[in-house]
């Protein structure tokens, strides 16, 4: 504090006490009264610390020393602590800060403007809808384009109206946002795109999901994977004992409305030793699963209905020595209003092996919207899991095939090699049984 301020401070305090504080809200007035009371109280010498004085967030300067002695450091500045004392009981929107309230007024005005604009656009849409297509320049196609464009603009405005509301932001960050409202979906999508989307696209690229399983895959929904209540980051290797039971998915879609989706869990690395190649296997297939922005939990074990479950969960396994298996979870959106005949699916894909997601997608005109993946390798529990589910192949292992050199074998050279035969029997004591050199199968090159 500068000297000048130090001199002026008691004076200012006197003045402040005399002139009436202009209350901004009732809360502020109450706070001011409280502050005054406290000031009066603090002027009296002997006093007991209140509950607020024992809290490091709201301790007054005179009780700081006691608190520090007790091992609790006061939090923040003294100004902040006084503010915390006075504003704890005031709702957020009524906080007695003039700049804050002014800013809120500006934001409210902006929101009014946006709402008015929305109404205007909605009126336009209604007018255009009621208009005959023949009267619109460009015919039916132009009318549809215009309507779509207007609706898109309305959606944008809906987000714009609420995007500056601190309470909306707070509610979203507390996880209380209503996903049926566009603003919360907007926030959620922005959050997802900032990290999880990038991660999942990286996994799609680095694990070659895109050329191997689908020619194109750009997820638009957030799919999270949980095994036994533990979230599995995409691409992690999951123990076969953990993945024995079907996982739970948390699916968040960012566009409005309910829709039906199909769910496929596909192993893209089934070793095929006869053809010296890899094939694919379907580990789970379900269709007609309802999904909407506010329904996020999707436990695979709960999908049991006859018109949903086509191929039940098969525990992922990997044989010994085989490279890791990529198990992808693919969420495919069905056409609006279209349901898939699950009996047909059962008939088509009961064999599991040789499942092609590309052909499944084309056959039922689906669009892939969500993706997640995990990996499975041979581990200590795999043999037991395979035995439990009657899966053959736990007793075999894959070993790398030896590739022999293209060069012709060369005769061993050297003094000893030349003297290995019986003609040099008198030299055998020098040419045989050489330390550190196996000579059992004839003279060999030292490895």
């Amino acid at each position, binding site marked *: 504090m500068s000297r000048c301020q130090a001199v002026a401070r008691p004076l200012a305090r006197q003045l402040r006490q005399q002139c009436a504080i202009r209350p901004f809200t009732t809360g502020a007035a109450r706070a001011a009264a409280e502050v005054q009371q406290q000031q009066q109280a603090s002027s009296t010498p002997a006093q007991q610390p209140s509950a607020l004085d024992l809290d490091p967030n709201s301790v007054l300067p005179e009780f700081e020393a006691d608190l520090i002695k007790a091992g609790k450091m006061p939090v923040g500045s003294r100004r902040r602590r006084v503010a915390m004392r006075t504003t704890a009981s005031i709702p957020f929107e009524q906080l007695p800060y003039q700049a804050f309230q002014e800013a809120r007024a500006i934001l409210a005005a902006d929101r009014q403007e946006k709402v008015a604009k929305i109404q205007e656009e909605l009126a336009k849409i209604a007018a255009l809808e009621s208009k005959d297509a023949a009267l619109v320049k460009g015919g039916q196609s132009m009318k549809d384009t215009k309507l779509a464009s207007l609706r898109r603009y309305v959606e944008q405005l809906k987000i714009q109206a609420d995007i500056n509301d601190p309470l909306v932001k707070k509610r979203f960050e507390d996880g209380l946002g209503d996903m049926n409202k566009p603003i919360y979906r907007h926030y959620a999508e922005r959050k997802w795109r900032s990290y999880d989307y990038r991660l999942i696209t990286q996994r799609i690229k680095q694990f070659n999901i895109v050329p191997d399983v689908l020619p194109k895959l750009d997820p638009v929904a957030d799919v999270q994977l949980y095994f036994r209540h533990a979230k599995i980051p995409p691409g992690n290797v999951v123990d076969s004992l953990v993945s024995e039971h079907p996982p739970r998915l948390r699916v968040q879609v960012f566009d409005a409305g309910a829709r039906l989706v199909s769910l496929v869990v596909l192993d893209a690395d089934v*070793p095929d*030793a006869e053809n010296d*190649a*890899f094939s694919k296997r379907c580990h789970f297939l379900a269709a007609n699963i309802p999904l909407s922005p506010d329904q996020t939990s999707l436990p695979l074990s709960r999908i049991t209905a006859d018109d949903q479950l086509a191929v039940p969960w098969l525990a992922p396994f990997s044989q010994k*020595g085989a490279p890791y298996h990529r198990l992808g979870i693919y969420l495919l959106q069905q056409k609006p209003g279209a349901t898939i005949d699950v009996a047909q699916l059962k008939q088509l894909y009961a064999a599991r092996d040789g499942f092609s997601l590309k052909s499944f997608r084309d056959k039922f005109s689906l669009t892939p919207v969500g993706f997640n993946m995990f990996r499975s390798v041979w581990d200590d529990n795999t043999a037991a899991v395979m035995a439990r589910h009657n899966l053959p192949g736990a007793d075999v*292992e894959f070993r790398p095939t030896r590739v022999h*050199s293209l060069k012709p074998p060369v005769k061993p050279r050297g003094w000893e090699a030349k003297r290995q035969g019986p003609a040099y029997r008198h030299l055998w004591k020098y040419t045989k049984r050489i330390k550190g050199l196996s000579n059992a199968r004839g003279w060999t090159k030292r490895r």
Partner: protein
Amino acid sequence: MRFFTIQRPILAAVAGISRPSVVNSVVAPLGAQLANALVEGRRNASVKAQGAYKKKSKRGIPNKLGAKRTGDQFVIPGNILYKQRGTHWWPGENCIMGRDHTIHSMATGYVKYYRDPAKHPDRKYIGVVFNKDDTLPYPLHAERKRKLNKTVHTIRTEVAKAEVSPSGIPFEVTRVEAGEPDRLLRLRSDYSYREDNWRIGRLVKTTGLKTKAFRTRKQWFRHRRWRREREIAGQKEAEKKRAESGGGGKVMKAISKKAAKKAAKKAGKKAK
């Protein structure tokens, strides 16, 4: 030079004229000699040699760069396909590039030299395909062609060893003593029970003894070097002292400065 080329007929004429006139003379006149030398292309030592820098050296060590396998040739993993300085060629399908930009094969198959505008507009690639008829690059968004490169073998299970020898006594016994680690004793061919030598060696760790004063060999050598340096320095000092005190005989005891001062003070007090 130009002068001479122009004047050559004249010079020749001069030479022709001069020759018959001095038929018997052994040495031709100096001017004519010079002219002749120039005409014939001889060079005397007084004239500096030129142009040697243009001659290439006859032999050097060849780098042996270039293609080591032609297109469609059969290769196995690890084969060198192309040696180069810099990246004239890039590794394509089933190939990798080594530390010195050498292209190696990574699969058993057939070599293909190709361009892939989808990957890079002006790079040349070397790839290996599994089928000789395939052409590179493979179509965009097509599934990768992969080979398992593994064969199936039944897992060998270890045969459980009998715990008791044919003579009815166990192969292994454990000696348990309080306050000591358990010791595993094994039956030997002479029917004695003895611990494995490597297990005995492990026991050192359980004692908590510090066998080495120095953590690393380097530290030990450094310490030895310093110790020797200190010793040599001390010996030199002692030698100097000895020389000062009259070449041998009684050696003065080394006293620190502080101690000397104290002794002097004490002596002074006594004198008083």
